[in-house]
């Protein structure tokens, strides 16, 4: 997803454009910080499928290997 289409993602609940911001992601006993799209009103975060199935899965696998 390119930057232009990312900026057009709307919050399904609030119907306002999501904005990029730092969010915390909890995994097992770890908390990570990443810049993701989130709703400025309700705080809901958008995690693209590529991120969830690709890089996030890679993080899980790598941390389990450590």
């Amino acid at each position, binding site marked *: 997803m390119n930057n232009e289409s990312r900026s057009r993602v709307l919050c399904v609940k609030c119907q306002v454009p999501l904005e990029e911001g730092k969010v915390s992601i909890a995994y097992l006993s*770890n908390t990570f910080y990443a810049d993701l799209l989130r709703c400025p009103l309700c705080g809901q975060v958008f995690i693209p499928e590529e991120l969830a199935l690709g890089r996030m899965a890679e993080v899980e696998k*790598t941390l389990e290997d450590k």
Partner: protein
Amino acid sequence: MSINTLTQLPNRVYESELFLNKATGHIRPGGTELTRRLVEFCGLQPGDRLLDVGCGTGASVAYLQRDFGLQAQGLDPSALLLERGRRLYPEIILRQGRGEELPYPNQSWKGILCECSLSLMELEVAGQEFYRVLYPGGWLMITDLYWRQPHRQSPGQVFPTRRSCVLQGARGMEDLLQHLQELGFALRLWEDCSQVLNQMVFDIIMEHGSLTAFWEKILPADDPGLCQQTAVSGKPGYYLLAAQKKWGGERNVIGKNSGAGPARPLLQPDHGPSGPGSQR
């Protein structure tokens, strides 16, 4: 800086912009929280003289000068990083040099800070230099990589690259603490901070897709798979340490106290005659 071919790679791995945390300006795991923890534990006060050895671009020097009012200066062997630092932080003093040969007089610093840089130095030589330039009771403050399951051979022999990187010089905890004790330092604080490595791994995967892809960019002339395998087998961790230069007479006694094992964390700073608020 483009890093596409071997000839364009810097000699020192840490000079690569791939290691630069764009948010904090640091070239190491963690942000300023570990630096703050050390300075607060050691009770450093505004005006105290602190030398950051292996300062890179000087991000911590600028932070300590700005937020703590320390008289902080930085030293690093990399002309490339120092040049970058002088552009980023024109208000700070940075000097080119090595930890093994500090260009400062005896007993001229209240604190020495090494953030992910001690592993790049010859510990025995640099440690003697740290001892020489610190005030009696002065503080050695370190954060660095260590092996939680040390390799049998020295890491320099194990880690399969000829380029300068911390994985070659990292040690096990007991080995490190034994050396510091013999050099004349009393351990006051040891904390495992390996969580910052997890965040670094997370950031690398978010940016590069996988750790393997990152190794391939950093060490293309070596075997990235073997590098990763070697690193993982030693169970890398990250520590924070504060040790205090012993008063004159104590040093030899402690140094000859062989067989006593590594120093135990006392978790109590001894501010002694050159502690916070004292006159120099």
